[in-house]
């Protein structure tokens, strides 16, 4: 039990301040906050940036693996420098990458591209970051219901991966009984293959802040949190500068920047809330949903960076304008693309664009393409038969995949599918929070299965993967466990010849 008036949210910053996991640190932070020492140890041992502080990190994500991250590790080994292999650093467009102990990029490939400046795009990454806050001013002239009508007619869906209609959440939080409520920005972008929020915060931070301010005003929140991925120091600086510039427009609004500390699971909205509260990032049971019982138990609107960044132009140009930008579903979409591709980067295209259209924007394939992940590790693999399938929420779900965060990764025929599967399964095993049995045990089992297959070539190693996937999908608490077997299962399904064994 915590001491009376314990200061739990300060735990993370203090742990960071004291240098992360080391004997005596938990005791010190316990004294400073009134939170029990063991509890703090539970927290510090959960987050990799705190549990293993002060070392270089080499990305092992699929894009970095394909780009030759082993060479980076070998170089460090040769110099005898301590480092950690980590499952993804969020710079797939610049693969292979390495960060130093201050989390700054030290090794990276060519910098990624974005869609050229086009003022008719809602986010327009290449455009000038307008700090006029005209949209906020326009919103304040509108009746709340009129605004909601626009949001609804825009058809804006959550860009974090779930694709849930934004207006429903906004309305729900606004309609909760009077009292404190919060808006939280999910900027913990961590899906391998995804880096669109990073670019948005770097290039158009005011878009995000303006969208956030509109959200706060609409739902009646005076405090907002931006939960930013810990490995993103550059976006942090960009946001801090922008927040300082925006201050005249944000009267009565307290926007706090909370840094993550190395846990993919905190991108799950309720795990993210736990992290802001200074706890282990373990997802909560739903129901109740965050719109009812969210941050510190109060109604909370949680939106992805891209979702909020779409809002200013919806206010200025109307819902129908936004909706009509889409092809098969409403709006435009930031698609990330990396892997065997000429110009990896972020491209803002009509929602429902096909892989071929995206690749065309990105300068074409490298080599002969064989497979792609449409939405990061969680979406599994698809063969090139789907290159003309619209990349949208509904259509991809129908083919047993998903758009997710639209982190498209392309694999050419030099890649062994079993090896590709293994990279993804390592990611999920590393990032499972360990709370619920199906995911904790299942992620490890699937990884052991693919390891055993690669090592022995025996098909029997894979005989239970489907049962396990069924149980993980049916029985896990959160989405991580539900999708964690998809790389393996989809690869087995679409590339059967690569799993016939020896």
């Amino acid at each position, binding site marked *: 039990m915590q001491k009376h008036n314990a200061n739990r949210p300060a735990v993370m910053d203090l742990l960071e301040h004291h240098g992360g996991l080391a004997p005596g640190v938990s*005791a010190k932070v316990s004294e400073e906050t009134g939170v029990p020492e063991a*509890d703090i140890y539970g927290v510090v041992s959960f987050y990799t940036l705190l549990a293993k502080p002060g070392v270089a990190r080499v990305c092992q994500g699929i894009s970095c693996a394909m780009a030759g991250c082993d060479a980076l590790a070998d170089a460090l080994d040769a110099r005898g420098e301590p480092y950690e292999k980590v499952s993804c650093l969020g710079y797939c467009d610049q693969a292979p990458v390495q960060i130093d102990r201050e989390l700054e990029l030290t090794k990276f490939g060519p910098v990624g591209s974005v869609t050229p400046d086009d003022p008719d795009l809602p986010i327009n990454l290449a455009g000038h970051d307008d700090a006029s806050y005209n949209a906020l001013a326009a919103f304040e002239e509108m009746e709340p219901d009129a605004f909601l009508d626009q949001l609804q007619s825009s058809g804006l869906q959550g860009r974090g991966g779930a694709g849930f209609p934004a207006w429903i959440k906004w309305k729900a939080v606004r309609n909760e009984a009077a009292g404190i409520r919060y808006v939280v920005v999910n900027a913990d972008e961590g899906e391998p293959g995804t880096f669109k929020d990073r670019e948005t915060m770097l290039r158009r931070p005011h878009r995000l802040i303006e969208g956030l301010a509109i959200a706060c005003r609409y739902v009646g929140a005076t405090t907002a949190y931006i939960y930013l991925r810990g490995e993103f120091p550059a976006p942090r600086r960009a946001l801090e500068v922008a927040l300082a510039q925006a201050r005249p427009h944000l009267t009565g609004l307290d926007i706090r920047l909370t840094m993550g500390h190395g846990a993919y699971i905190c991108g799950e909205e309720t795990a993210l809330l736990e992290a802001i509260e200074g706890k282990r990032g373990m997802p909560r049971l739903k129901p109740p949903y965050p719109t009812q019982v969210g941050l510190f138990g109060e109604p909370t609107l949680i939106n992805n960076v891209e979702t909020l960044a779409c809002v200013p132009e919806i206010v200025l140009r109307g819902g129908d304008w936004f909706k009509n930008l889409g092809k098969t579903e409403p709006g435009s979409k930031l698609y990330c693309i990396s892997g065997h591709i000429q110009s990896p980067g972020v491209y803002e295209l009509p929602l429902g664009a096909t892989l071929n259209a995206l690749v065309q924007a990105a300068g074409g394939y490298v080599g002969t393409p064989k497979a792609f992940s449409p939405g990061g590790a969680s979406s599994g693999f698809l063969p090139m038969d789907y290159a003309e399938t619209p990349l949208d929420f509904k259509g991809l779900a129908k083919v047993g995949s998903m758009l997710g965060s639209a982190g498209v990764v392309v694999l050419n025929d030099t890649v062994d599918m079993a090896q590709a599967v293994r990279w993804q399964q390592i990611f999920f095993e590393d990032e499972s929070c*360990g709370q619920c049995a199906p995911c904790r045990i299942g992620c490890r089992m699937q990884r052991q299965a693919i390891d055993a297959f690669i090592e022995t070539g025996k098909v029997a190693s894979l005989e239970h993967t489907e049962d396990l996937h069924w149980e993980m999908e049916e029985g*896990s608490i959160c989405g991580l466990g539900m999708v964690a077997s998809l790389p393996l299962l989809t690869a087995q399904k679409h590339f059967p010849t690569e799993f016939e064994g020896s």
Partner: protein
Amino acid sequence: MSDLTVPILTGPTLTLTLDGEQVHAQDGETLLDVCRRAGKDVPTLCAEDRVDPMGSCRMCLVEVEGQRRLQPSCAFKVQAGQVVQTDSDKVQRHRQLLLSMYLADHELDEDDLPRERGTGNLLRQHVLNHGTGPDLPPINAPREYRMENNPYIHFDPGACVLCNLCVRYCDEVEAVSAITLAGRGAKTTIATADQKGLLDTTCEMCGGCIAVCPTGAMTEKPSLASNFQEEKVVRSTCNFCGVGCQVNLHTQDNKIVRVTSPPPGETVNDGNLCVKGRFSMEFVQHQDRLTEPLIRGKDGGLHPTSWENALKVAAEGLMAVRQKHGTDSLGFISSSRCTGEENYLLQKLSRAAFGTNNCHQCAAT
């Protein structure tokens, strides 16, 4: 390992359909409450009446019409008109697969069943009652533990299902928060801060972690060698402070080998015990116990004698004082440590046999 109590309906009710039958429930109840009242065999590992539901073991999932996925009955609230299935093909498949997964992450005995420990292993019972799915290879997840520096509590990570009950009990009920979930993923374990020995933490050694552990991963160190199935259990009242905790004294070969609490819900201690009640019974079998009557000899020392002689010497000695100095020169000191009957007899002895009201006991709180 504690049982869950069957909740009683006290207020207005609503109706839902459980396995095809209409059943009543109360607003605010969980599906598990309803299942228990209806006598459904819904297995659980991480549910406990004294702590908030966590829903992490996933054993109790049931099928709720309109819900895309199975739902944890321990946390899912009832609603009028719900249609719930506790034994559908889907639920059965889930249970058996999940049990297979647990087996792959658990220490097994020679019959390939979860090893019996402490006062029993609930996982073993679930496996026997519900069966398992495919044989899965062991997962060999490395789990650290170093909380051994203490005389009472043994933790074996190989038998831990990470239901987190020990941690939740320690925090929510005992409120000392000596242990935590530590690490992440398959390596998650139960730990103390900085992996210290329990003696060096806030742990008060109440042993509640043992009491709530479903699998015996937490056990009484002094009882490690004892097989609970051979133990005789006698219900009694703790002999320390004035709370009146009910205890089960487990005995074997005329020795107390373990002390547990009766299940929560029916006694004043509600399933809880403290370090004294659970662990401080070593005195009963201690070698220093008095085993024969003693009388003071001429040499000034105490010497063994027969009961007959001891009673005679005592009676004569006390009567001699009475004769010499009067009835009220004797005092009788009773004990709040003895039974009510004994206190009654002592005042009767004082008043009726010796004629004095000089009779008292130490504590007058």
